């Protein structure tokens, strides 16, 4: 399998990429909630690639069990109609998958993964996953399935920034207790355990994980550089407690380039394993930006680490605003034939 291996990674502005790359056929996976940016990548595809055949899988993120369902549903309807209208105009197939995000366990990925498995039996080719509105509890399993499958020729990830908040997401209304993400559970029984928490705009999940588990060593990851430099200051301010306890072990890694972040984490992990032994347990907690989560995914699959995460209980229905869209090429032809 040819994929990003830490030597170089391909990251582009989405429009530029779509102007150059010629898809033959595409499987597009995205999530639809209340955020304004939900239909953005699909719209880009409609403008730049009107001729190609696209099969769209849309994950419906809302659920009646969500206490904030009514307001979120009202906002989501607008996105649903935009997505339907784009797909209808291009005669693209549309498949809706309902994710049960509010079932108190991390099963949100199951309906999506099941659908992807079915798709992979019938289709081999290019996949584009838009993670802009997708919770990490779905992003990680979806990417893992597509990364491992030999039927995926090229695996692309698209991400649209929220101009109003940058990369610092603060919409979560409470968090569940920490859980290992599906496919990234801890299998290692070694006693020595290192934690790499990727810090973000909300310190609550990091505090919860810290209280939940004992670690021998902690290396907090602070996002730098970033598109909005003030975000690094904010991260330091908001997470001053954990940073204050581990100032000598801070890791600075890119906030908007998943490949740079992954290279940095990989070299840290390699160094730790060469010092403390290959068997040490390494746990990553991706609570930083979405691009950082893609980088954390790359490290988790290439360095076999566990991923411990606090799933938000619900989200405040902030629509946000639409910023620029980016593309990350995770696997496929640019990494060798």
């Amino acid at each position, binding site marked *: 399998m040819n994929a990003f291996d830490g030597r*170089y990674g*391909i990251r582009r502005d989405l429009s530029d990429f779509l102007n150059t790359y010629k898809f033959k056929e595409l499987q597009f996976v995205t999530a639809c909630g209340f955020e304004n940016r939900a239909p953005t990548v699909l719209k880009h595809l409609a403008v730049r690639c009107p001729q190609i055949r696209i099969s769209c899988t849309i994950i419906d993120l809302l659920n009646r069990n969500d206490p904030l369902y009514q307001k979120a549903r009202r906002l989501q309807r607008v996105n649903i109609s935009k997505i339907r209208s784009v797909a209808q105009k291009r005669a693209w197939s549309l498949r809706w998958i309902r994710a049960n995000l509010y079932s108190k366990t991390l099963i949100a990925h199951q309906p999506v993964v099941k659908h992807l498995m079915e798709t992979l039996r019938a289709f081999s080719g290019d996949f584009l996953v838009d993670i802009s509105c997708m919770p990490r509890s779905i992003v990680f399993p979806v990417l893992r399935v597509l990364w491992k499958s030999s039927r995926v020729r090229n695996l692309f990830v698209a991400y649209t920034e929220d101009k109003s908040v940058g990369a610092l997401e603060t919409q979560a209304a409470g968090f569940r207790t920490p859980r290992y993400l599906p496919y990234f559970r801890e299998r290692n029984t070694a006693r020595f355990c290192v934690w790499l928490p990727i810090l973000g705009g909300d310190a609550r999940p990091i505090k919860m994980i810290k209280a939940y588990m004992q670690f021998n060593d902690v290396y907090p990851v602070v996002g730098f550089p970033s598109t*909005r*430099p*003030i975000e690094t200051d904010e991260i330091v301010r908001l997470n001053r407690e954990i940073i204050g306890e581990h100032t000598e072990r801070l890791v600075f890694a890119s906030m908007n380039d998943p490949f740079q972040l992954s290279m940095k984490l990989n070299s840290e992990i390699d160094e730790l394993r060469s010092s403390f032994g290959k068997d040490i347990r390494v746990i990553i907690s991706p609570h930083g930006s979405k691009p950082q989560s893609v980088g954390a995914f790359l490290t988790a699959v290439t360095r076999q680490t566990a991923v411990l995460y606090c799933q938000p209980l619900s989200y405040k229905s902030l629509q946000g605003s639409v910023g620029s869209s980016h593309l990350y090429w995770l696997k496929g*032809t640019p*990494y060798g034939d």
Partner: protein
Amino acid sequence: MLDEIIRVGNLRPFDYPAAYKRLDRFLEKCVFIGMSDGAQMDYFRRHGEGKIKNDQALPYYKADEEEKRSHSKAKYAFLLDDMCGSGITFLRAEKARSGKVVTGQLPRFINRWLRFASFDAIYCCPYLITERGFKRLTKLTSGSKRIIDRTRRFRFKILYGMIIPEKYSILNKGNELFNSVERKRVKSLCERYYDPTTEDAHTRKGGGCKFGFGKTGIFLVRYNNAPNNTPSIIWHANPARDRTALFRRLARHHL
């Protein structure tokens, strides 16, 4: 760099495997040059170990003739620096008796180096750049209003580590960091505590430092220094007037 190899080698778009195979050969044609001590060439060398040879990384662009001659076969020059604020230090047009003169680090580099090496491309690589400086330099180095290399002997491109948005400037009405009242208060603080002894002949070329050299207006302090693009109330100390600075600046170069 891989994109450059694809372009120069006329490879198919996205043929990164082929470009990567050519990377070592491409790097042999490159020279990496510090434009000030902020470029931290020792750090750069250490991290380029195995790919970039020691003698390909020069600590300073004002090198002697022998040094420059030894790089006569280089085709790509990477000019490294820690910070580009207004871009005035790097490139500007100045009035002189004979008319307008183009000066700054880039013209000085060209004058000193292009007699010894013929570069296909020159890359300006600041670790940090302001959006305003980026736009200004882009305008002055490409397009119809370019003031440098009008005969287009080489390509010029800015490759930065991080860009500081224009909306971080206190002179920008759409400032993202302060609301309009706060922004005006910060501005008035800059005016109220401005000390004209901050200025010398060099800083005056950039319109003074009340709001930062080149009227950049961004409050930025790095671990190793405060750039003069930061308003002077942050970094200017005047012991004669019993004024200390929060982050005292060490002036290390002139225009």
